[in-house]
Structure formats: structure tokens, C-alpha cells
């Protein structure tokens, strides 16, 4: 693919430098700086991480149960939801469970195979930041060209969607 290796993140309508580092499971955890850890490492090293004075994030792979960190949100600044292939839709459920069931209010970012045609769906599921390497997707985002249908037939528990039309389940962006 014609991908660029980017260490930025798309959030609030633009690409910003990303202050986060993704650590491998055998990398030491630095005292400072924002770092993402795997879910298994996060759970294994909880005792130490609870005392850490810098932002810690958790990468939730497709197939991992995000409910396993539900009691530790005080120590989780961000969650990265992995989309190993854009056709693997498990991350959508992960994101909605995080936002709507568990009430997580930190950043949820999509990582992996993040493409332009899925971004609107990801947003509705509560994802608010996107790590994008696919070049045409980056170009489209930069041009503000996000294809979407903003008439929703189902409530998805987001504060920025409001009821509309005659039926109680219809929503549109606020």
C-alpha cells in the first residue's frame, strides 16, 4: 500500500503531532511520557502502573475483552482500539462498550487498518481519534472529505447526537 509512516493522530478535524509512544511488552516503562501498553501487560503490571505519574494507555486488540480494565479507568488515560483489518468489526463493539456501558471518557483512538469509509461509523461508536497511515485516507481527511450519511436510524449513546424526525429512535448530529 502507498502508506506513509505517520506519527501523528487525527483528532478534532486535523492531524496533530502524537505525544504517545507504543511500547512493546519487553520495553521498560518510562517514568515520564504518555505510553500505550498491551492489555495483558497493563493487567500484569497494574500494581506499578497505578502509581505512575504520566498518562498510560491500553491497546485493546480485536478479540480482547475491554471489560477486563473496567475497574482501572482511574489509571487509563486513553484506549487504542485495534482494527487488524478494516473488515474486522470487533473494535466497534469494544468502543461502544467502553463509552456507553463502562462510561469511559478518555480518548478512544482507532489504530490499524483505518480507512476513510469507516471513520464516520467509528465516530458514532465513540472513537474520537484516528491513527491513519493509508495515504488516500489522509488526503481525504486533510481535504475535509469524509463520506458519511448523517441520518441515523439508531441511537448510539453519543452526547453529540440529538433526536430528530418523528420516530423516537432517529438521530442526527447536534
Amino acid at each position, binding site marked *: 500500500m502507498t502508506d506513509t509512516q505517520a506519527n501523528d493522530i487525527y483528532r478534532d478535524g486535523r492531524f496533530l503531532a502524537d505525544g504517545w509512544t507504543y511500547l512493546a511488552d519487553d520495553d521498560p516503562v518510562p517514568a515520564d511520557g504518555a505510553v500505550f501498553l498491551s492489555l495483558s501487560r497493563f493487567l500484569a503490571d497494574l500494581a506499578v502502573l497505578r502509581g505512575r505519574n504520566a498518562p498510560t494507555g491500553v491497546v485493546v486488540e*480485536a*478479540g480482547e475483552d475491554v471489560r477486563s480494565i473496567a475497574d482501572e479507568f482511574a489509571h487509563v488515560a486513553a484506549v487504542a482500539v485495534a482494527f487488524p483489518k*478494516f*473488515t*474486522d*468489526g*470487533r473494535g*466497534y*463493539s*469494544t468502543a*461502544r462498550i467502553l463509552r456507553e*456501558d463502562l462510561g469511559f471518557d478518555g480518548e478512544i483512538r482507532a489504530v490499524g487498518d483505518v*480507512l476513510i*469509509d*469507516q471513520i*464516520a*461509523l*467509528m465516530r*458514532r*461508536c465513540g472513537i474520537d481519534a484516528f491513527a491513519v497511515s493509508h495515504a*488516500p485516507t489522509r488526503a481525504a481527511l486533510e481535504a475535509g472529505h469524509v*463520506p*458519511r*450519511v*448523517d*441520518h*441515523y*436510524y*439508531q*441511537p*448510539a*449513546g453519543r452526547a453529540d447526537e440529538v433526536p*430528530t*424526525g*418523528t*420516530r*423516537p*429512535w*432517529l438521530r442526527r448530529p447536534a
Partner: protein
Amino acid sequence: MYRYDEFDQEFVDQRIAQFSDQVRRRLKGELNEDQFKPLRLMNGVYLQLHAYMLRVCVPYGTLNSRQMRKLAHIARTYDRGYGHFTTRQNIQFNWPKLSDVPAILKELAEVEMHAIQTSGNCIRNTTADHLAGAADDEIADPRPYAEIIRQWSSLHPEFTFLPRKFKFAITGAPHDRAAIQVHDIGMQIVRSEAGDLGFKVYVGGGQGRTPLVAKLVRDFLPEEDLIAYSEAILRVYNRYGRRDNKYKARIKILVHETGIDELRGDIEAEFEKIRHGVLQLPADEVRRIETYFALPPLDPAATSARFDAKSAGNPAFAAWAERNVHPHKVTGHASVTISLKPIGGVPGDASAEQMEAVADIAETFSFDELRVSHEQNLILPHVRLDDLDKVHDALVAADLAEGNAGLITDIIACPGLDYCALANARSIPIAQEISERFGNAERQRAIGDLKIKISGCINACGHHHVGHIGILGVEKKGEELYQLTLGGSADETTSIGAIIGRGFAGDRIVDAVETVVETYLKLRANDNETFLAAYRRVGDAPFKEALYGTA
């Protein structure tokens, strides 16, 4: 029937704009075929053997004459003058150009139709009893619920990239004409002891290479929980359904491997978290949706004097009416099957001229209403008995008056090797040959109710597993071979047919079917014992012996 309001129309228009943009990017090369594929599939565009195919949604099989005329127009303008009605109550066009698809979608939107989610690993068209709203045995019309499911599932943000496709079917009658037990979710409307409406919910039925009958997951689901419970099932499936092997990715495998009791626990736990939230259906809103599907103003004093006289005087008419006319909940009326199974024809095909003729008939005699049945026929739901002879005359003129509903020539067949890139063998020519062989009207009638279903490969789009006689095309050493299964059924006594023995070559399979039928005729207890009943009584043995000899 359901009518779009402004919201629905804007939704479809936006979706067309979005898809048109995707087609443009594909044609420009910004999207490669891998990236385009799931997008076009979300919108019903398949790549077949020879061309793209566009599958248009007919929600729960209900349409009006204006929509039918539009389908005829599309067949004539963008295709080769015909369309093919499918086992999912949809219609597909086999020869559109990709660059024409945006224009076709715009034309469809003018009559409140679309191709959204007619393919892809998402929630597909919800199918329903084709006699919904008319059948004399129904508890409630299933279509308002199917419409609510349609809305909820349209571009659902969480369930657009499921492990595999997902199909709902719903029936409002205890006699199941919608094959609910071979769907991912099957719903049957029931009344609780207190008199409240709700659903029996089945999950994990399906065909394909691992045919499984659905399991009952809930005895009684209150009406207000229809969507919350569906969302719970879909969430469990989206998270835990297998993604390592596309042949094991349907929810039936998850049910089978996890066990229905454990899975029910997961579903109920998810349901508990959301059941009292925004997905709860307000009863007054359900009642309001129901008004779209209200019975047209039928005259309860309608008589049948003319019908009786015509039946007595015209044996061809009487014979047609005996098979193709079904009881209606309002006296003096009936529902009519318009057979798309002419003797020797392609099951489910209709020409543009035939679609227009059917539209005219529906407008004049059936309150403008039409249905597509999952058996690939068309239905006029509300016809006065005393108009039936006029309907019959009009059908004769359009070459649509075959009186074979439910008989051996009323065959379901998948497109097979004539169109489908996955096929092992031809289905349509086999269906045509069987139809010719048994086409004699007296012979068919003497055989009685018998459903033959034919698939060109193990994906089972032709529902062979649930055919009383099923035929499956397989490939062996480069040759097309056909396997016979017996005893399948897709009604409230759903069963998967059993393979009877080794397969037959293409030039022998119709003889084999004839052997099975002749064997049945010899052993049936009386003229009223159907093939299925007889098979269930005697089992495989006599058929095996007739087909393969005793050795």
C-alpha cells in the same frame, strides 16, 4: 405499506451520494478492488462470472405497482429486459454496468427503493411471510416489526463489519411460510397468556456447508424489547463469532460450538444492560408503524357466486385456483400466487413486460399491493374471489398462469454455473429439465405437494438442504455431479434433508428424481399422504433401494 418521510428519503439520497462517490473513486483507481469490494457489497453490487450484478432490496417482499413498474423500467433500460426474483424476496439484475449503478440507484430512490445491505457481512433484508397481513391463520402482521428491524439495522455503526452476513426472518403465523428456523435469527409472533404480543426467538439456523436448525433462545420476548434483544444478540455475535474461517463464521457455528445455554447467558447479560434504555420500543410508536400496513378496505360482504360459477364452467381456471389461491382473513377474498415457474422456464425470472402486467393486475385487483415470496413467486395479497377469473385471464395473457404453486415444478433454484462465480454445477438447466419432465398438469397434481430445491454448490443459495427433494451440484474430477437429499423441510417442522447416496451425472439426475417420485407414489399410504409425510414414515430404505439396488 410503509411510506418514506423526509428523513427516510434524505437517508437514501445521502447513501446514494456516498456510494456514487465510492464508485467514482474505484473507477479512478483511488480504491483498489479489495478496498472497494466491501463497500460495493454493502450496496448490493456483486461481481459475477460475466458481469456485475445488482441486488435490489424489496423489504420483507412487499412492493406496490409503481415500484414494480420501476423495476421493469430498470430491466429494460439498464439490463437485458428481465430481472430475477430471489429466495430473499429481493430482485437482482444480472447485467448492469458498474458506471450505470449510481443512475439505477437514483431511479430506485424515486420510488422509495434501494440496494442497501443486500449483500456484505452486515444485516440483510429481513424476510417475512409472503402472506403477511392477509393470511387467515396469522396472529399479527409481521411486517411492522420487519420494518422496525430494517430501520434499526440500516447502516448500523456497530454491525457493518460482522464476521459474516446476517439474516432475520419473521412470521406472524404458527404455520411457518418464512423458513424462520434456517435463519440467523428467526422470530415468530406469539401471544402470552396475558394476551400481550411478543416473539419466540430462534437463533443460529442456517444452510451452507453446515446446515443447522435454529435453537430456541427465548420463549417469549416482549414486543418492546425487539430491538434491544436483537442488538444484544448481534453484539455477542460481533464479538465472539469466528473470523478465522469464513465457512465457520455464521452465528450458527457460534451457537453450535458454544452451546445454546451458555450463549443465551451471554445474550441475556448483554440484554440486561440495555433493555431499559433508548432501544425500548414505545407501544404507541409500534401502533403508528402498524397503520402503514393496515388492511385495505376489503368488503366483508363480498360474495363468491361468480367465482363458483366460473370454477364450475372452466376447468383450467378451477385447476389454477385450486393450487394458486390461498385463504384470506376476510371472507370473499383470497391471496394469489403468480407462478414464476413456467414449465421449462427459469425459476424466478420475469421479463419487463411481465412485471408491468403484474403491476397492472395489482393496481386493478389487489389494492396496489404485491409480494415477492421466498419461493421465487409473486403474490397478489388481497383479491376478491369474484375477481379471480379476471385476474386469471390477465395472467394467461402475460404467460404467468401456471397453476403449480407448491407442486413439483414450483422449483427453487440458485443461479448456479450460468451466472455464479462460485458454482460447481448448473442449477437452472436442471430445474428446467425437471420442470419439462413433470410438466403434465395431471401428473403434477397426482404427485401433490412436493418442494424441489436446487443449489449449484454447497453455499446452498437454492435451499437444497430444506427441499423435500434437494439437489446439490458438486464437482468431482472436473465433472458436474448432483447429490440428492431427501426429507428436508423449512416450515414449523424444519428438518435438514439426508444425503441418499452417491451423486448422479447431469444426464442422470432427472431420472433419479423420477425414480424417487415413482417410489413415493407406489408406497404412499393414500393419495393424501404427501411426499414428506411418506418419507418421514418409511425413511431412506425404499428410496435407496430404488436408486441403487439392494446390493
